[in-house]
């Protein structure tokens, strides 16, 4: 598993572009996208590796929080499902409770189930 090789390349690019930490900027999103691309290239050998899966998950979440797809393509993403506000909403602080309606999942839904046990 070559997750460390991808991580070193990510750190090198962050230094080179003078980005001190993850931020909602086009430059960071480009670095993050390259990092994800490098990780995907190692996917088969990294299955089951905690560091690999955690890094993939964290990068995906940062990309979503920072609206990277929008920053990188400069178009409005379409196709979001009518779920409670996600990355477009600012994080709630203790002083700003969310409106009740916003936190109620409206509508009729079909449900899906997943289970894992044994063996």
């Amino acid at each position, binding site marked *: 598993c070559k997750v460390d090789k991808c991580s070193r390349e990510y750190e090198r690019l962050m230094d080179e572009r003078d980005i001190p930490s993850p931020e909602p900027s086009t430059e960071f999103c480009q670095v*993050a*996208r390259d990092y*994800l*691309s490098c990780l*995907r290239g190692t*996917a088969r050998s990294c*299955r*089951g*590796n*905690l560091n690999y*899966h*955690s890094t*993939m*998950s964290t*990068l*995906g*979440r940062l*990309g*979503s*929080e920072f609206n*990277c*797809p929008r920053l*990188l*393509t400069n178009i409005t*993403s*379409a*196709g*979001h*499902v*009518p*779920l*409670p*506000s*996600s*990355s477009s*909403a*600012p*994080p*709630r602080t203790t002083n*700003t*409770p*969310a409106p*009740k309606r*916003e*936190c*109620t*999942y409206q509508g009729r*839904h*079909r*449900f*899906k*189930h*997943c*289970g*894992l*046990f*044994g*063996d």
Partner: protein
Amino acid sequence: PHLKTFKNEYQTCRVRGAWPLIDNPYIGVQVTNEPVVDGSPATATTKVTIIIRGRSTPCADEKTYEAASDASLPATFIDGTQRSGPDASVVLTVHEQQRIEIYVRYIETTLIVRQAGRYLAFSARMPEELVNFSGGADGDFSDSSLQLCVRGCPASERLDPISERGHKLPWNKAMERCRRSDSNEVTNNLTDHYLDWCVFDVMTTGDGASANDFAAAAHSAQADVLRLDPSSLKNKTTTHREQNPYYSHAS
């Protein structure tokens, strides 16, 4: 472990190590699996981590739940609380038979973690659009390919339930053990894949205490399905001929 995906695919998988089950803007679930017995590729779940992603919604603070098979199921999130968000939009409850449930109201999602013998089990019920959201609109930054609940196990990680099961107990004995309900909580007879999976586990682990645990785990898993997704069960029992490819030669 044995996996029933959101698409109702039933798989027995190797998936040794750390693997994501669910990974979307609202919830992340990851499991760690370890080998069950020497000489068998079968693994079982020894750790479950659930993250309720508060940063992506104003409806809850971020919460993490961690369960490990070598300790009792924690009764709280790791910060010691059982609730989060306005009007308790995230609630963790503790139930008998070593089971905890997390209900996330703003996405109508139920998560269950069970301790079955020496191992852990997981179950999730969530709206279809949230399942599909996983691979959604985030382009390069979305990746549903590694979520076992969404895509199932990679082909190379799948085990054949007949050729790769153990032989520590004959099929007949294993079937008898699985048909006998050892679980205090569940009295429903095992059917469908849950019966097949129980037979796989008991044949692989033998006639010791762990066989009881695995039979009980199958009953618990089926109990969750009866509650959360009852229409998926067809009440189909497996014949000896279906389970044993050599049956016709032997007879």
